């Protein structure tokens, strides 16, 4: 199985191994993601897709391997310092702050861009005020971009599912990430919502040039928009390549449909 070499990858994962007790969730997985690439990870349930995301973002501690982001090793970093490097993520089961407004959720994404201290904030000094105003402007641009102007002051808990997904994407964008991890961005969405989300994902790449890694079960979407696809089964990499090639790969067909008689 040949892998087209990626020159100057933004994310370079090698020999990544994660075990929970006797279960190997991720088994010596290797892949590299190029700049501004839209990279998809697919595989049956329990294949280790989300585990890879959790390793990258510092939630899980892999036993072996390395994860290099723009040359920097991510292994051993805490989730907050990974986020501060410019890696944002969305979650499989939407993890928004339900009791806060859409605006507050997005402002939270700006947290590490607001670098005034507690004392300046306490006295609401000029610096703090300027920083808040500037960041509010960035957030408003994202609200425009995702077409959620009408709900900006709503409590997130009151929104329907599809909009929550969009708000969560907005919060990740508010971090102005260099790498965006999307965990099942269209899970549970109807056709129309899926098409909207696909459009936003393509716009993010076209207009903002953000590199994205996406875990997704919706094969139609993956084949339509991904540049390259990594296929996992039982924690192991079984294929990596362009969508067209993946679809006809015998190992992939076997993992999804079972062995041919």
């Amino acid at each position, binding site marked *: 199985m040949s892998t087209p070499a990626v020159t100057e990858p933004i994310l370079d994962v090698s020999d990544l191994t994660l075990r929970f007790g006797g279960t190997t969730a991720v088994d010596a997985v290797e892949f590299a993601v190029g700049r501004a690439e839209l990279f998809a990870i697919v595989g049956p349930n329990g294949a280790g897709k989300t585990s890879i995301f959790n390793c990258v*973002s510092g*939630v899980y501690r892999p036993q072996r391997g390395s994860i290099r982001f723009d040359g920097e090793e991510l292994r051993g970093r*805490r*989730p*907050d*310092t990974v*986020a*501060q490097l410019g890696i*944002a*993520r969305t*979650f499989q089961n939407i*993890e*928004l*702050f*339900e*009791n*806060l407004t859409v605006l*507050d959720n997005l*402002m*939270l*994404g*700006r*947290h*590490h861009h*607001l670098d*005034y201290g*507690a004392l300046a*904030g*306490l*006295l*609401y000094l000029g610096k*703090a005020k300027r*920083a*808040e105003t500037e*960041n509010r402007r960035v957030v408003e641009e994202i609200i425009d971009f995702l077409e959620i102007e009408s709900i900006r002051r709503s*409590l997130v*808990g*009151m*929104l329907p599912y599809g909009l929550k997904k969009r708000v969560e994407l907005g*919060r990740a964008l508010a*971090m102005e990430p260099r790498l965006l991890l999307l965990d099942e961005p269209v899970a549970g969405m109807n056709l129309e919502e899926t098409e909207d989300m696909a459009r936003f994902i393509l716009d993010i790449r076209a207009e903002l040039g953000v590199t994205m890694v996406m875990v997704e079960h919706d094969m139609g979407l993956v084949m339509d928009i991904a540049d390259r696809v990594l296929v996992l089964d039982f924690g192991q990499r079984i294929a990596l390549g362009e969508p067209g090639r993946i679809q006809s790969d015998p190992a992939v067909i076997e993992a999804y449909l079972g062995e041919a008689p």
Partner: protein
Amino acid sequence: MDELIASVVRGLGIGSTYALLGVGFVIIYRATKVINFAQPALMILGGYFTSLFATRAGLPFPVAVVAAMVAVAAIGALCERVALRPMVGEPPFAAAMVTVGVFIVLLIVAFRLIGTQVLTVGDPWGLSRTSVLGVSVAQVDIAKIVISLVAIGVIGVFLARSRLGLAMRATALDQEVALAQGVDVGRIFGLSWAIAGALAALAGMLIGTASGGIEATTALVALKALPVIILGGLDSIKGSVYAGLLIGVAESLTRTYQPEHAPFLGANFDVVVPYVIMMAVLMVRPYGLFGTPEVQRV
């Protein structure tokens, strides 16, 4: 009528110090979901340090107060780092028990520092009186009300408007997700303890003003913050302010009128009143007058 106004002003004065203590509880609760039982000990240390800086070190009174607030904020942050940080991820109840331990440790330290003395904090108000609506009231009561409300106002704006305030609210709602936004959750915990410590120090100073003075057992006064936060709601700063003032006034009115109108309740019944109110609230509105029930889409 004069008696009534004087009694209400006295109640507002003591009530505003309860409000300060209550806000300290609320800030720690909102960020960490932990009820901080060490708050009374932080208060007594605040009174001690104010006295130390103002009367023994001879600093000007406002400087001494700020220095005491900084000192107790540092003690609060240190307690959080040493005793509470290892409890991150543990059930809030277990962490609350740790704060009881912190309370006992700090209280013993305070007992050793203060001993059997009654410390004066060196406040400029003393026993002077001024006139409100033609009624003579103690200046110190006015000072308590103004200083407390200004301090709480500054903190309220900070929490509502600044990035750290937002990060504190987010941390309270979901630590994992706050981490994923780049929020240093440990630092937020430390900050909430530092703010609560500074407010407790201010309350300790105010309770020690005028004829009061600080002695080791003054810490028990701070227990009245419990009825305040139950009444106001554990997560509401506004609730703490209203509840603090309400309980202060209820206590003061009882002290003024109960011996005459309901003598069968016995002496010092005013001490019981805050807890009576607390029990009544627990029966009808367990989340307090201003506490927020969860927003949920069903």
